[in-house]
């Protein structure tokens, strides 16, 4: 507006013509603003978000009386180290009761041979099935939602054959097995498709993961293993890898976890590819506290929990402790 332009009269001095002109302009401005708002209005907002976000995706499978317990067993034979570790924890019967339906969440992310240790070793998966069935479990399901073709992953990793031979059932994810799940108060896991189908009627959950370097997260162990319960375009979570792992730690409360550091992938993870990426660390951990298990696992990779920011954050959220020594882990050797 030019500074020389006279300001039209208003108030008692305004004429009818001026008033009408102003009223017309004001009306046009209001109509334009309303039109713009109508144009920008999203007629299909996520209206149910608030309600659905309050739903928890998974029940808490941890045992109230088990507290933070941990066993660290050294040895080269995974079956023996696993058995010894569970004995040290009070026996598998402490965790699995007659009639239980058990899910063993393995890491079957890649269609890779077991010698590369990029996936849960078939010996660990099979022995867990045998132990659970021996304790009276009615059914043991072994599942994962691999990023590669599921059938190839379970077959080529050797998990399908070993689990089948042990009496377990491999559940390959189907579209109907996915349902939206949310972490209450979560920032990332909100109405996100999750592999929930295999959990229908399940009473116990065991996580079984190898110790691996991970290019994005620093390390992939028992907590990162829950990433395999996510469906959809989950790779976008790599933009906040620590955030998603912390939320998974909050979302999934297992009965116990098995961390297999018999051979640890020190470099080029999580896929590896060469035997040269592996180091024999000859250690297997069983723990009711996944944070503690992973904090110990970090040491097998030559790291500390300080190198893996998600561990301290998970501990702050009440998911466990990074001070695994405070759990007074039982140590044994079966070499």
């Amino acid at each position: 507006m030019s500074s020389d332009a006279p300001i039209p009269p208003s108030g008692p001095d305004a004429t009818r013509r001026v008033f009408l002109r102003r009223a017309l302009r004001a009306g046009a401005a209001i109509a334009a603003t309303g039109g713009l708002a109508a144009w920008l209005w999203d007629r299909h907002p996520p209206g149910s978000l608030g309600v659905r976000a309050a739903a928890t995706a998974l029940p808490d499978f941890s045992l109230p009386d088990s507290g933070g317990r941990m066993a660290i067993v050294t040895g080269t034979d995974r079956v023996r180290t696993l058995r010894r570790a569970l004995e040290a924890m009070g026996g598998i019967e402490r965790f699995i009761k007659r009639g239980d339906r058990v899910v063993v969440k393995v890491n079957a992310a890649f269609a890779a041979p077991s010698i590369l240790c990029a996936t849960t070793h078939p010996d660990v998966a099979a022995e867990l099935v045998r132990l659970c069935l021996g304790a009276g479990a009615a059914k043991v399901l072994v599942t994962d939602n691999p990023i590669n073709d599921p059938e190839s992953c379970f077959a080529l990793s050797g998990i399908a054959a070993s689990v089948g031979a042990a009496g377990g059932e491999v559940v390959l994810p189907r579209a109907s097995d996915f349902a939206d799940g949310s972490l209450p108060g979560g920032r990332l896991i909100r109405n996100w498709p999750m592999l929930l189908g295999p959990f229908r009627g399940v009473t116990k959950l065991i996580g079984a993961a190898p110790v691996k370097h991970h290019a994005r997260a620093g390390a992939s162990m028992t907590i990162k293993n829950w990433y395999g319960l996510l469906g959809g375009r989950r790779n976008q979570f790599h933009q906040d890898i620590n955030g998603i792992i912390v939320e998974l730690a909050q979302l999934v409360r297992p009965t116990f976890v098995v961390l297999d550091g018999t051979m640890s992938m020190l470099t080029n993870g999580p896929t590896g590819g060469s035997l040269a990426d592996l180091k024999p660390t000859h250690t297997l951990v069983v723990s009711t506290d996944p944070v503690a298990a992973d904090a110990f696992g970090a040491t097998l990779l030559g790291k500390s929990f300080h190198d893996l920011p998600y561990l301290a954050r998970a501990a702050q959220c009440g998911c466990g402790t990074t001070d695994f020594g405070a759990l007074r882990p039982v140590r044994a050797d079966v070499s």
Partner: protein
Amino acid sequence: MAISTSSRLPSARESAAAATVCLVLCATLAWLVRAQSRFSPAVDIAFHGSKAAAEPKRAKAQDLFSTLPAELRPMSAAEAFGPENLSDKIDGKAEVYLSAGVAGLRCQRMALAAAPSTWIELFVFDMGKPPNAYSVYSSQRRSDVTDLQLADYAYRAGNEIALVHGPFYVEIVATDERPATIEAAGALARAYVAATPVSAHADVSSDQALFPREGLIPGSVTLLSTDVFGFDGLGNVYVARFRGGRDELTLFLARRTGASDATGAAAALRTFFVDDCGGKEVARPARPAGAVIIETGGTFEGVFSTGAFLAGVHQAPSREAAERWLQRLGESLAAKK
């Protein structure tokens, strides 16, 4: 507010009030634009839930070979992935390739004709340019390898063969390391190279040779494409590990477009160490000319430029070690460049 005069100018107070209102509106608009433009997976999930649930589409690729070596049979169909879905195949390792400019991945599994339960998977990463292919190769090169005369920089590490062929980084992963399996993997590598003409090769030997020879840990020379030392303004830098006496540290060098570019890069890196890493400049040694040493969290960084090269020391254990290795690197560059 009533205005009773018919032709007066707005008062200073009115102008100030109008300007304040405009400023508030502009600030609100800026906040809205910023908030809307920042990526938030949670928002994306909320708004595109059904779309996000859909499985990614994987491209059907043609077989990587029209004629396989006699030892091998196709075991699976070829797969192709682009930058947008590379992580569907290799998960978090995709970051290594994405930061180096990957254009795509093709892969296929093949079984040994004589032992169908034994198989090999061929991964061909198209990195766009030979230096990018060398970058991802060098950042993943295993220690304790056997060099192979199959292609550029080819080596075998246990059950795996890796090589660079023009803009392609190739990995061949076998299920075991028995002689017959490794022989088949080698035949596959030779067949791939023979069937894939390339117009340019990654020749990094001249730049790598500028490092001092003494103390170089074999196989440690790596070409880093981006975010070198966490500095997003620094890329295409060779780093190498050195050991001498009680010292173990990293030397680095990078060819820039000219002397002024190298000088500017050295100044920017110094600023990064001081301003962003909380470092403190502790010395300006006499040689190499223009070098500075910065202490950051108990280790020492050294930076200088000479001609078109940016060079320096990374994470030296002491100031004396930083000075010692800066001088060696400077002398090596002066003698060889």
